[in-house]
């Protein structure tokens, strides 16, 4: 095994025992990037120079016996989190020249934990998409099949982990943007409870839904990452003061006697037979691990997509109003007057999908339509949340497929936004309810594409989530394959 193929906890062991150095790990990782990045295109910006400087510092720290869990570990960052002094594009032409003068809260935390940043990963423009195809910087490839998408919007971060172009990565999830690409790329992806991780410095798509979370090679690494990322931040009024447990303590604990809910609304038409088979198998595995599976109902699930496509675009239409060419970012040249500058800048600066959602959202908030759309959607959202609250009175966790199908082909759904939106069918309601969710690999399709199973837990029950995910991972013992790059 080469260094870049290992997990955080494996590398930390090696670093602690001085078996290797961060510089070696970093060199190995960048060697891998050099070899496969031209095929995968996981990154928008590489941070090689600063990475080696960080690696050097990490090695010095280790020498002094100051080795934290992330010290010297190469981590990739979705290009939606602001990095001081490093280009942060959000996958958009609009921010193609934007260098933030501040770090996002999670960047500060990762820095403090000693992480080495490999670069900024590709994503759908402003996180609007499920395939990275809306990125201004081109489409990332699924490492398991370069003709296919890696999922999105955090597709670059998922592909980078799957292709071993980093050890772990950071993504953001508004409707499934961590869990869906994690499933399609065969890695672990966790979306924390809304408010668990500070959003300060996370470029907003839909503020009431966005959460930052990790992509990792196994569940234990997800726990390690959560230990670093979670916690209150006084710069984010929506971040929670709820105490953060040591998530690692939940790894390896069993789930004997647990009740695991199977929502009947999630196993219906549109579910790919191979995915259904793999997830049904996962349910069996969970039972083998000692849990009891119970059917639960989330009756408002069928509205979650509709609600999402009102709430998220509405918030986005407002969040993206700041990109007007006045202060930073792209400005179209040669404008006659202010209005002309706005129009030209926003017409040329945003891609089609972003414009579509701005228009949807603007419409939903317009006077005369607000009650019928935004207000009604907010009410249904409360019902979706209540469904989950009720379900969690009957079970400790919920199990569902992460995605309806394995990775689809590049270009397959770009012509039909509805088809694209449907790929988030199983992940969206989680964001509506604000609860945490994790996608864990649960097998492969006949053609060798990864399939993911999703576990959900009640608010701030990331511990339970990691407990069942790790118990499943251990019990299932899915054959470890590597993409053939």
């Amino acid at each position: 095994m080469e260094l870049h193929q290992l997990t955080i906890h494996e590398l930390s062991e090696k670093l602690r025992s001085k078996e290797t150095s961060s510089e070696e790990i970093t060199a190995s990782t960048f060697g891998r990037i050099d070899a496969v990045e031209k095929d995968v295109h996981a990154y928008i910006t590489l941070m090689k120079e600063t990475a080696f400087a960080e690696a050097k510092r990490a090695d010095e720290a280790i020498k002094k016996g100051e080795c934290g869990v992330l010290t010297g570990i190469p981590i990739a960052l979705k290009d939606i989190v602001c990095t001081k002094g490093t280009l942060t594009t959000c996958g958009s032409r609009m921010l193609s020249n934007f260098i933030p003068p501040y770090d996002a809260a999670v960047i500060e935390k990762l820095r403090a934990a000693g992480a080495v940043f490999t670069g900024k990963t590709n994503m759908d423009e402003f996180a609007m998409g499920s395939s990275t195809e809306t990125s201004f910087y081109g489409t990332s490839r699924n490492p398991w099949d370069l003709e296919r998408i890696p999922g999105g919007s955090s597709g670059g971060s998922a592909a980078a982990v799957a292709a071993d172009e980093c050890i772990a990565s950071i993504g953001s999830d508004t409707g499934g943007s961590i869990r869906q690409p994690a499933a399609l790329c065969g890695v672990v992806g966790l979306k924390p409870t809304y408010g668990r991780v500070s959003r300060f410095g996370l470029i907003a798509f839909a503020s009431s839904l966005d959460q930052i979370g990790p992509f990792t090679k196994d569940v234990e690494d997800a726990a390690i990452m959560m230990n670093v990322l979670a916690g209150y931040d006084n710069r984010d009024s929506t971040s929670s003061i709820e105490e953060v447990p040591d998530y690692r303590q939940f790894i390896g604990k069993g789930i004997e006697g647990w009740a695991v809910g199977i929502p009947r609304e999630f196993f219906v038409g549109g579910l790919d037979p191979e995915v259904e088979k793999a997830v049904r198998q996962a349910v069996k595995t969970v039972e083998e691990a000692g849990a009891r599976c119970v059917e639960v109902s989330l009756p408002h699930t069928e509205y979650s997509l509709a609600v999402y496509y009102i709430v998220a675009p509405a918030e986005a239409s407002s969040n993206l109003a700041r990109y007007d060419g006045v202060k930073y970012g792209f400005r179209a040249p040669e404008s006659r007057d202010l209005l002309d500058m706005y129009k030209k800048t926003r017409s040329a600066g945003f891609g089609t999908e972003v414009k579509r959602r701005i228009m949807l959202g603007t419409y939903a908030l317009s006077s005369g339509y607000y009650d019928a759309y935004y207000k009604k959607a907010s009410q249904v959202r409360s019902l979706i949340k209540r469904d989950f609250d009720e379900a969690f009175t009957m079970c400790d966790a919920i199990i569902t497929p992460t995605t309806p199908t394995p990775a689809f082909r590049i270009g397959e759904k770009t012509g039909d936004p509805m088809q694209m939106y449907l790929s988030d069918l199983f992940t969206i309601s989680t964001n509506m309810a604000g609860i945490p969710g994790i996608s864990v690999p649960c097998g492969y399709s006949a053609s060798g594409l990864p399939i993911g199973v999703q576990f959900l837990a009640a608010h701030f029950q990331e511990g339970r989530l990691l407990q069942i995910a790790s118990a499943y991972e251990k019990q299932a013992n899915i054959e470890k394959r590597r993409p053939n790059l």
Partner: protein
Amino acid sequence: MEFEPVIGLEVHAQLLTDTKIFCGCSTRFGAEPNSHTCPVCLGMPGVLPVLNKKVVDYLLKMAMATHCTINRESSFARKNYFYPDLPKGYQISQYAEPPAEHGWVDIETEAGKRRIGITRIHMEEDAGKLIHDENSPSSYVDLNRTGVPLIEIVGDPDIRTAEEAAAYLKRLHEILVYLEICDGNMEEGSFRCDANISLRPVGQKAFGTRAELKNMNSFRNVQRGLEYEIKRQQYILESGGVVVQETRLWDDAAGVTKSMRSKEEAHDYRYFPEPDLVPVHVDDKWLEEIRSAMPELPLEKRERFVSQYQISPYDAGVLTSGRALADYFEEVARLSGQPKAAANWVMGDILRLLNEDKKTVVECPVTPTNLARMITLIQDGTISGKMAKDISEAMYTTGKTPGEIIEEKGLVQITDENALAAALSEILAKNPDQVAQYRAGKDKLFGFFVGQAMKATRGKANPQMLNDLLKKMLSNQE
């Protein structure tokens, strides 16, 4: 047909917090453009607002002072529109759940007393400023003011005349300044007013079509603008026309209002709940903290001054026109034990001297202790009122105590009857003709003798004693 104006005012008051409403930047006016900015108030990607609690404190004060119902939970909303002085493309304001509603203030005009309702008061952030240079094809943006906290006070459409509008504004202004939550400077824009005005036939309940009036940056302009607008709408209606719903700007130089934008061009602000902020909860403890720190308000103070100090309502009005002035007066009254004299001296010499220097009472070099001491010295006859005038001016210029000034200038009043009698005898002896004329009935000459006596004593003679003694000596026929 007779028409009745219906006027409702919207007041924006900039709050005197040290820092902005959603970030830690300074709110100080007049700094280098864009020097009081940070990623949050610049609306950079990914940053988030955090509410300054002080702003809520100030809002609660104003809500209490205007008898509003305080809602225990209120929330923020986004008001969306594009403009270069609004970096986020939306203003964080409050919409569906305001923190304070249903208040009122009493006003008084020549027509009498009236109570004007307050619909609501809410918090919001100010926008920046555009700087236009006539010689340049582009404009500049200064975002120092972006995020400076405002409260918007929306008045009920209870006002019927331009004079009432001015009185209502002055009342709000006075309360804000008294509460020390707004400096009230209209020219710098810390106190701004928009007016909604329509006319309806007297007796009709339904409102007519309204115009929104902007750009009136003084009490006088508010009154003039409304007077103009009343006439304009009246003319339209009387000549059978229709008032158009629109926003109009007051043009001070031309003395007219001009159309700015019509209803069709009006913004759709697409208000929706601000997802980056959590609702504000005001608990009993918070309310009690504010309540216990509430100062006495101008109207209450005015009434108390009249009854406690037995001064006229007019004097009480002048003395309570500012909190610092009222405190100053009360201190002088307390220390001297002579409220009426204190009122006269504060309103007379002290205010005159301050006005001449364009200073406020806070900067007054005459301490209340010194002024009170001087009043006591007049009362016990140590100095005369005329001397006191000199002493007060000297105190003002030098900041010294009355004792020091009296000593320096040798100003102690001559109250020794023998000494004064000796001086008077000398004067009478020197002016036998005038004495004779006076005794023959030319009473006017009394003033002449007083003048001579004051000259001889260099003004130090106790006037009362001088008068008495002089009369006695002149009437003593030899």
